C-alpha cells in the first residue's frame, strides 16, 4: 500500500469513527452551517462535537501548517481529505470567512505573530470574521472607497461606512479596507483588522428580497485601531485585497468542497418526479454543465497547488460557478411547482426553496459582478486591446 493509500484508509476510518450521523446530512442553507465565533449557538450537540473533534486534529484547515492550527497536509493529502469527506457525505466542520478569505491573505502577508494569533483563532472557530470592502458609492469600482483612517501616531481613527458586510451583526472581528492616503488611489488603501465591539462600530441589517438579512450596513464613528492591526504594508492594502478577492471568487464559484453545484436531475426525480420531457432535457443539460464544472474546480485546485493555474482563473470560475448556481435554483423552482412558491409553510421549512432561489441572485453580484469578471478575463487572460 502506498503512503497515500494508507493515508486515505486512515482518514476514512477517522471520519467513520468521528463524524456524527447528523453531520452527514447536507447543509440546508447558510443558517444550518457551523460558523463558530464568540456568540455562535450550536444547532445541536452533534455540530459541537464534530467541530471539537476536527479542531483537535487540525481538520478545520487541513492544509494549514500545524503551528497555525492546521493538520499540515500536503496538496495530495488535502485532496484525499476532501474526497473522503465527500464520500462520507460529511459536512464541513466549520464554515468561515476566516478560513476561506482572511486566512490565505494572512498566510501570505501576515507577520509571524499575526499568523500564530489570528490563524489559530480561526482554525479553532473562536472568532467569526466579516469583510469590510464595499461602500455605498464603491461597488464594482471598489478602489474608489472613502472610509478614512486618520493617523494618530500609535493608532488610526477610522470614520466611514461599509455596505453588504456579510453577517456583520454576528461577526466578532472585521477585516477592512480603509483609505490611509487620500492622494493615492490604488496605493492609498490599508488592510486593517479590528474588533467589532470597538466603540464607534455599529451595524444595521439590510432586508433583502429573500426576506432574510445576511448583509449589513456597517458604520464607523471615530473607531480606534491600533497600528499593529494592519496586514501588509501601509498603503499597500490593495495588494492584500486583490489576493483575498481571488480566494473569495474561488469560494463563491463553489470550486472544491461545496456540494451545492451537484447534479440535480436524479434528486428532483426522486422527490416527486419530472413531469415532462422538456424539463428533463433542461435538467440533463444542467447536470452536464455542473459535472463538467466540478471537473474544472478539481483541475483548478490541482493546478493551483503546483503553480500551473493562471492567476486570473478564479475570475472565470467565479463567473461560471455563480451563473450555474443561479440556473440550478431556477430549475429547482420550476421542478418544485407551486409548493416551491410557499413563503412560510412548515412543508418548505419556512419558504427555503424560494428564499434560497432569491439568495442566489446575489451570487453574480457579490465579490465582483459577472460583468466585472468577464472584464478581468478579457484583460488579464485574453489580453484583448483596451480592456
Amino acid at each position, binding site marked *: 500500500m502506498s503512503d497515500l493509500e494508507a493515508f486515505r484508509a486512515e482518514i476514512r476510518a477517522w471520519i467513520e469513527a468521528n463524524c456524527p450521523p447528523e453531520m452527514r446530512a447536507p447543509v440546508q442553507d447558510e443558517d444550518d452551517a457551523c460558523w463558530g465565533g464568540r456568540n455562535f449557538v450550536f444547532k445541536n450537540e452533534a455540530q459541537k462535537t464534530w467541530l471539537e473533534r476536527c479542531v483537535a486534529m487540525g481538520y478545520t484547515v487541513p492544509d494549514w501548517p500545524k503551528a497555525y492550527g492546521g493538520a499540515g497536509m500536503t496538496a*495530495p493529502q488535502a*485532496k484525499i481529505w476532501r474526497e473522503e469527506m465527500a464520500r462520507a457525505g460529511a459536512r464541513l466542520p466549520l464554515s468561515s470567512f476566516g478560513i476561506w478569505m482572511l486566512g490565505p491573505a494572512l498566510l501570505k502577508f501576515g507577520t509571524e505573530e499575526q499568523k500564530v494569533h489570528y490563524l489559530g483563532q480561526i482554525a479553532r472557530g473562536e472568532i467569526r470574521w466579516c469583510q469590510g470592502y464595499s461602500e455605498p458609492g464603491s461597488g464594482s469600482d471598489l478602489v474608489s472607497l472613502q472610509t478614512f483612517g486618520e493617523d494618530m501616531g500609535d493608532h488610526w481613527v477610522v470614520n466611514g461606512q461599509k455596505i453588504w458586510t456579510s453577517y456583520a451583526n454576528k461577526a466578532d472581528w472585521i477585516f477592512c479596507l480603509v483609505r490611509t492616503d487620500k492622494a493615492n488611489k490604488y496605493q492609498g488603501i490599508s488592510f486593517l483588522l479590528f474588533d467589532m465591539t470597538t466603540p464607534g462600530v455599529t451595524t444595521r441589517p439590510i432586508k433583502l428580497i429573500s426576506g432574510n438579512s445576511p448583509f449589513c450596513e456597517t458604520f464607523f464613528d471615530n473607531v480606534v485601531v491600533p497600528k499593529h492591526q494592519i496586514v501588509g504594508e501601509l498603503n499597500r492594502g490593495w495588494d492584500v485585497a486583490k489576493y483575498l478577492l481571488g480566494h473569495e471568487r474561488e469560494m463563491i464559484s463553489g470550486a472544491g468542497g461545496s456540494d451545492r453545484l451537484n*447534479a440535480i*436531475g*436524479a434528486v*428532483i*426525480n426522486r422527490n416527486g418526479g*419530472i413531469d415532462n420531457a422538456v424539463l*428533463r*432535457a433542461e*435538467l*440533463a*443539460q444542467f*447536470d*452536464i*454543465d455542473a*459535472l*463538467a*464544472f466540478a*471537473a*474544472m474546480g*478539481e*483541475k*483548478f485546485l*490541482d*493546478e493551483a*497547488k*503546483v503553480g*500551473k493555474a493562471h492567476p486570473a*482563473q478564479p475570475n*472565470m*470560475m467565479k*463567473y*461560471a460557478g455563480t451563473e450555474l448556481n443561479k440556473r440550478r435554483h431556477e430549475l429547482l423552482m420550476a421542478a418544485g411547482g407551486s409548493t416551491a412558491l410557499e413563503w412560510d409553510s412548515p412543508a418548505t421549512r419556512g419558504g427555503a426553496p424560494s428564499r434560497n432561489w432569491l439568495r442566489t441572485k446575489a451570487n453574480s453580484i457579490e465579490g465582483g459582478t459577472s*460583468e466585472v*469578471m*468577464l*472584464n478581468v*478575463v*478579457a484583460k488579464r*487572460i*485574453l*489580453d*484583448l*486591446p*483596451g*480592456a
Partner: protein
Amino acid sequence: MPLYHTEDQAMLAETVTGFIADNGAIRGQLRTLRDAGDAAGYDPALWKQFAEMGLTGILVAEADGGLGLGHVEAGIVLREIGRNLTPSPFLSTAVAGASALAAASDDLKGRYLPGILAGETVLALAIDEAPKHRPEKIALRAERAGNGFRLTGAKSFVVHGASADALIVAARTSGSDSDQDGITLFAVPRDAAGIGHNAVRLVDSAMASHVRFDGVEVDGGTVIGEVDGGRAVLDRVLAAGRVGAAAELTGVGGGAFAITTAYLKTRKQFGRLIGEFQALQHRAAHLYGELEIADAVVIKAQQLLDGGSAQADMMVSVAKAKASRTTNLAVREGVQMHGGVGMTDEYDIGLYMKRDRALAEFLGDATYHADRVATLSGY
C-alpha cells in the same frame, strides 16, 4: 491523480504539438486534399509518419508491440489533430479500432496490428444504421453459415470506409433489433465479396461510406470477442471513440478560438480594434471559460476511463456533450466575430465550423449524450 498532464504526458504533448503543426497544418493537408478531390480523404504518407512517431500504437498493449498508454495520451494527439483540422484515420483506427482489437484473438490481432503499428493499415467503424447514432439498436444480421457467418444489412456514416483495410462491424447474431444481448463484432475485410460501398464526401471534406452487406461471408476468425457477447466490447469501443472525439473537439474549439481572438486584435472598425468593444470582449471571455471547462471534463473522463472507474461511462457522455456544445459555440462565435470574411472559403474559421459539425455528430451528438446522462443518472 491530479487533473493535469504528468511530465511524460507533457513531453508527449510538446512533441506532438510541433509535429502536427509542422506536418498536419490546414494548408498542407486539409485544403490540399480537399482541393484535389482526394478519394481517401487523408494522406497515407502522414499516417506513416504518425506510425514512425509511435503514435498509432498508443492504445496498443506493449505485449502486442504498442506503447501501452491510455486515453489521456491518445487525447493529446487528437487535440492537435483537432486544432489543425488534420484529416487522419487516427480516431477510427488507433483509438476505436485498437480498442476493438484489444478484445480480439491473437490471430486477428496478427492480421491488423502490425499494419497499424507500421502506419500501413486503416480501420473504419461500421456501427450506425440511420442518420442519428443509436447503437442500442443493431439490425444488421449475421447468420451462421458453415464455419463462419453471413452478414446482411446496411451501415452508414462509416468514416474512411471505402479506403479502410477492414471495417469493425457491429452485427446482430441473435434476438431482435433492440436487444442488449445478441450483438457480435466482426473485423470484415473492406473488399469481402458482397460488400458495396457508396462513398460520399461530407461537409468537412472527410470521406464516409454507406456500406451494403449483401450476404457477405466471413470466417469465424473475424469475430472480435464472444459471439452474442459483443455488447461489452462495443461499449468499450464507443467509450474510446467518444472520449477521443471529445478530445478532438476541444482541439477544434481551441483552434477556432485562437484565430478568432487573433482577429479581434487586428481588425479595425470605427477607428479602433474590434477587440476593444466590450460586447465582443464579454462573449470572448465567456467562451474562454466554457473551453476551459470542457478541457477539464475531457481529461477527467480520460483519466476515469484509463483507471477503469465505474463512473467513466457517465463522464465520457458528459465530456462528449460538453465538448460538443462548447466547440459549437466557439465556431459560431468565431464566424460571427470574423464578420463578412468569416463567410469566405479563404479564411479558416469556416473549416472549423464544418469539422465541428461532423465531430459533434460522430458517436452521438450533445442531445444523445444528455439523454444518456439522464438515463444513467436514473431519470
